[in-house]
């Protein structure tokens, strides 16, 4: 117990979790926007848009996140000069958010597509038969129902995103949890079990409520037919 208290007083563990939460929230926002755009492209009547979105999803879904994160720093930043800020820490933070968002958007798209599959074809036919155009049918009828039908997979994507945010270490975000954990282990090799427990339990505490909430919402929001 003394070990725990010593570790907590020496290191800013909560601050590190906060960094991961921030990474997660920003990435969730951007990946949701990008995922919605992608899924609308995937169901659009224009075949080239469908192909582009399909290609994007296959590419990012099947690429290891670590490679994307390393690319953000060594490729996008160092070679292509993509810069968000002159402050190193801020710059790497946003590079990590970009990498996480690009990656997660593929999964958001897939989650929403599973939701779209729960919407009967007749809904789209009725919308078209009334003279609504594609954007109106998608925005007013299909996607609102698809969202409500994909709460559970979207929740799982959020959980995966929170855990994946630790890969930001690969994008040189040095204040987040997995970087801090490595640092703590380096200086406190005698307390490895305690250090593992702190981070493992920390994530479990963060993630259990997300799971409970998505289960609740997916029942509450389910579209009655």
């Amino acid at each position: 117990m003394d070990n725990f208290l010593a570790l907590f007083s020496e290191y800013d563990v909560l601050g590190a979790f906060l960094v991961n939460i921030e990474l997660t929230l920003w990435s969730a926002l951007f990946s949701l926007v990008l995922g919605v755009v992608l899924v609308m492209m995937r169901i659009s009547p224009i075949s080239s848009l469908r192909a582009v979105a399909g290609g994007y999803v296959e590419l990012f879904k099947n690429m290891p996140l670590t490679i994307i994160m390393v690319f953000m720093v060594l490729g996008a930043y160092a070679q292509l000069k993509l810069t968000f800020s002159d402050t190193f820490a801020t710059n790497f933070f946003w590079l990590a958010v970009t990498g996480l968002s690009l990656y997660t958007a593929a999964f958001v798209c897939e989650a929403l597509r599973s939701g779209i599959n729960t919407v009967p074809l007749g809904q789209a036919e009725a919308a078209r038969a009334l003279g609504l155009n594609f954007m109106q049918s998608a925005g007013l009828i299909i996607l609102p129902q698809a969202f409500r039908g994909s709460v559970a997979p979207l929740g799982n994507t959020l959980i995966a995103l929170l855990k994946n945010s630790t890969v930001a270490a690969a994008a040189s975000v040095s204040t987040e949890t997995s970087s801090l954990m490595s640092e703590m282990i380096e200086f406190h090799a005698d307390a490895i079990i305690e250090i593992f427990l702190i981070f493992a339990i920390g994530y479990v505490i963060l993630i259990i409520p997300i799971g409970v909430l998505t289960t609740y919402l997916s029942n509450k929001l389910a579209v009655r037919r």
Partner: protein
Amino acid sequence: MSEQNEATTQVRRPKPLASGTEQAGQPLVELSHVDKHYDKLHVLKDINLTVNKGEVLVVVGPSGSGKSTMCRTINRLETIDSGVIRIDGKPLPQEGKELAELRAEVGMVFQSFNLFANKTILDNVTLAPIKVRHMDKKEAEDLAMDLLDRVGVASQANKMPSQLSGGQQQRVAIARALAMRPKVMLFDEPTSALDPEMVNEVLDVMVELAHEGMTMICITHEMGFARKAADRIVFMADGQILESGTPDEFFDHPKTDRAKDFLSKILTH
């Protein structure tokens, strides 16, 4: 627009559900030499059919005869391989803005109702007038309430579709289509998914529409309705139109063996 305002200020006096009946007798929907395949299956074989303004056409025939497919080609929910379909003289446009405009003029009622599950009954009816016709909200709601009242479900306006019975949902679907003031109404087996005791409440609305001069194309297995409301019956089998005639001609003196066989199977009970 003033016409609708007027209607809502009146005491609920029945107002024709149909519009534009003054030019009765002119061709409104024309299909000529329409062919369609699903891979190797030839589902529509050289269909030629003209429906005049104000006419009530009932299409009957066995399952898989292409009735539904034909109905769905008229607002291009199904594409065709060859031939021409004209609505009010204009050929069906390709996918896009013009097609959306045309679909707004063609009301459709589906077998499975297809009310928007995420919208209230009222919103189901007002959605298209607001989004497609750019009617203002109040006006659209007045129109919707008027129509819902006419089909007898005004008291359900604020419920969700899943809270209504099948018959009520289908009547809402009819009101939703009528809210666009369509030139023609397509009914694709509107009573086939209903409990028997709810069939009549939907047919009553359809009969009323027919009497008011709405141009209607109805696919149905309700022979009582066909006899009562139809101006003309078309019999389809195997993707072809085999017979076309008045209800009396068709029911009492079917010409083809296929039609005789069909009628003998459905009229014996």
